[in-house]
């Protein structure tokens, strides 16, 4: 009986303790996979006492779908890419950050302070930015890789050894750049050409996979992989002899942003976390982990010195433009979906 009493008291004490910790509140984050170092979250908890819960997603579209299917009101913050910020804002899924609510808002670099996808940064702050292109295994192919032909009209050594991202947006932009047509074009001939190009290129592709885009390059399952620049750098560091290409036709530029969701259950804490991520030291820790770029002033002092000299961050002189993914009209999107189904049927 005595020992029972002891256990009960201990259990009670534990419960009280847990409640005390929870009293500081919590924060629920909906984030990309492999994109947030645990020590950054731990540091935030240490500084504020706020417990962070994180769920992950693997594409902007799947995140949008889960939020639409009932995730609004559950999560405080999410991290959509550029075009997805405008889609979410148009859908009324984002809360507005009033002037003065973020004390570190001034830390945002001027070039990212007023982006087209969120004028005036009403809903978002920069998280990371970078590029999406492709990496080629130099043990397999030593010729010129600075062209989108590598993906759509590959040399013999690379045929059947190409992994594409399982992402409609990235593939459509690269295909449009390859054909030299504008994104979201409603011109019928151009759309037919886009369809034909993908139909023809598919025979050279071995798989569509986003979450293993890095692993297939490291393991050698694929000799070419459509990939984000930071992932390519990581693949190189993990021993794959890969070179990241900056095609002369152009490549995809992107910026991921932390957004404040509508009906955030812990709005105050969410703002605290945004302020936390606008501190150069904290966002630099994310950049050192993810190997992209921060959009915050004063990060350079905290960055790993090797990052700046990475080949993935230093395009050659003949590089084409870096273009952001555009948001297509409903009519064009319907055709894009049809092309995508044709590609994967």
């Amino acid at each position, binding site marked *: 009986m005595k020992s029972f009493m002891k256990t009960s008291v201990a259990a009670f004490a534990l419960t009280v303790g847990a409640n005390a910790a929870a009293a500081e509140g919590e924060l629920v984050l909906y984030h990309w996979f492999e994109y947030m170092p645990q020590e950054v979250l731990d540091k935030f908890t240490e500084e504020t006492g706020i417990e962070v819960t994180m769920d992950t997603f693997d594409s902007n579209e799947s995140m949008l779908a889960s939020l639409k299917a009932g995730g609004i009101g559950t999560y405080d913050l999410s991290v959509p890419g550029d075009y997805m910020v405008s889609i979410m804002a148009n859908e009324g899924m984002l809360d507005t950050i009033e002037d003065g609510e973020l004390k570190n808002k001034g830390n945002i670099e001027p070039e990212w302070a007023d982006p087209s996808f969120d004028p005036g940064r009403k809903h978002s702050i920069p998280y990371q930015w970078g590029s999406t292109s492709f990496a080629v295994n130099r043990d397999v192919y030593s010729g010129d890789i600075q062209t989108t032909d590598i993906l759509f009209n590959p040399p013999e050594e690379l045929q059947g050894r190409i992994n594409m991202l399982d992402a409609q947006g990235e593939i459509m932009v690269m295909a449009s750049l390859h054909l030299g047509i504008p994104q979201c074009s409603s011109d019928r001939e151009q759309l037919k050409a886009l369809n034909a190009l993908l139909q023809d290129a598919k025979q050279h592709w071995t798989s569509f996979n986003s979450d293993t885009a890095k692993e297939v390059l490291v393991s050698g*399952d694929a000799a070419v992989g459509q990939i984000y620049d930071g992932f390519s750098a990581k693949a190189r560091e993990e021993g794959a002899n890969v070179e990241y290409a900056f095609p002369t036709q152009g490549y995809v530029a992107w910026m991921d942003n932390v957004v404040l969701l509508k009906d955030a259950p812990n709005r105050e804490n969410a703002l605290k976390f945004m302020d936390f991520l606008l501190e150069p030291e904290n966002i630099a820790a994310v950049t050192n982990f993810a190997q992209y770029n921060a959009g915050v002033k004063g990060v350079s002092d905290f960055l790993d010195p090797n990052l700046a000299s990475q080949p993935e961050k230093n395009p050659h002189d003949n590089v084409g433009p870096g273009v952001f993914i555009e948001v297509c009209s409903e009519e064009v*999107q319907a*055709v894009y979906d049809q092309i995508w189904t044709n590609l994967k049927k």
Partner: protein
Amino acid sequence: MAAGAASGGSATTDTYKEARTWLLLPAWVTLSILVLAPVVMMLIYSFLTKEFRGGVIWEFSLAAYDQFFFDRGLFGDEPPKIEWTYIIIFWRSIWQAGAATLLSLVIGFPTAYFIATRSENMRPIWVFLITIPYWVNLLIRTVSMKFLLRDQGPLNDFLISIGLIDSPLHIVNTNFAVQLGLFYSYLPFMVLPIYAAVERYNFALSEAAADLYASKWTTLRRILLPAVKPGVIAGCILVFVPSMGSFLAPDLLGGAKNFMIGSLIEEQFKGNAGNWPFGAAASMILLTMVLVLLMLFARQQAKAEKAEG
């Protein structure tokens, strides 16, 4: 209650007769919430209008079914032809699931037979061993399978080192890899029902057949198989049905190059298409197909039993 006690043997049945409706209530509530409600919701959604980027508008529409059965060209304004795309996707799924079921049966039946013929105290240990790999999450098992099968993986290394092949076999990102993945995912669902059936089988029947000069093959075909048929059929259904809707194996082992029913439906909810009514319609068509298959099968069974009786 008193009447129940008086009638002796059937006391249990009678005792609960009045209360039966109430006692079944929890089961009915659970079933309606977990099974009926989602299906009805899907049915309703499949007849609603698609909202751009996911979601539905509450207006009646047949667009989802139209999209499934009619091809109106890339821009949706050509005269309708029969749409083969989705029929091909369904056919591919049926074929893949069928191959995986066959593979499971070929491996699962002897396994179940082996376990059922062990001594009584060893059987639980063998069943336990069968289930051990399935304590691990399906996703992790599927990824591990990919690691085993890849060009530079242990399987190819082994086959090359014993000199059976010179260059690695390309297994990952093929249909065969998907079938292997499905087979591995659902094998216990084949083994366990067959084991349950074989365990109850009276082996004296086999001995009697042997005494009457039946060959081993004849005994298997005419005595054992008919006796354990319900277990075999249950196993086949339990492997075939989830294989048809699976999207993990096709995505990870098949390279996501070709849609299966599961990945097609997933794309409608999680992908760019964001076409919930179409995803719901495809689910309803899949559900109907499976139901019709099972009903045809049940009728066939009933007929066969009548003929025998």
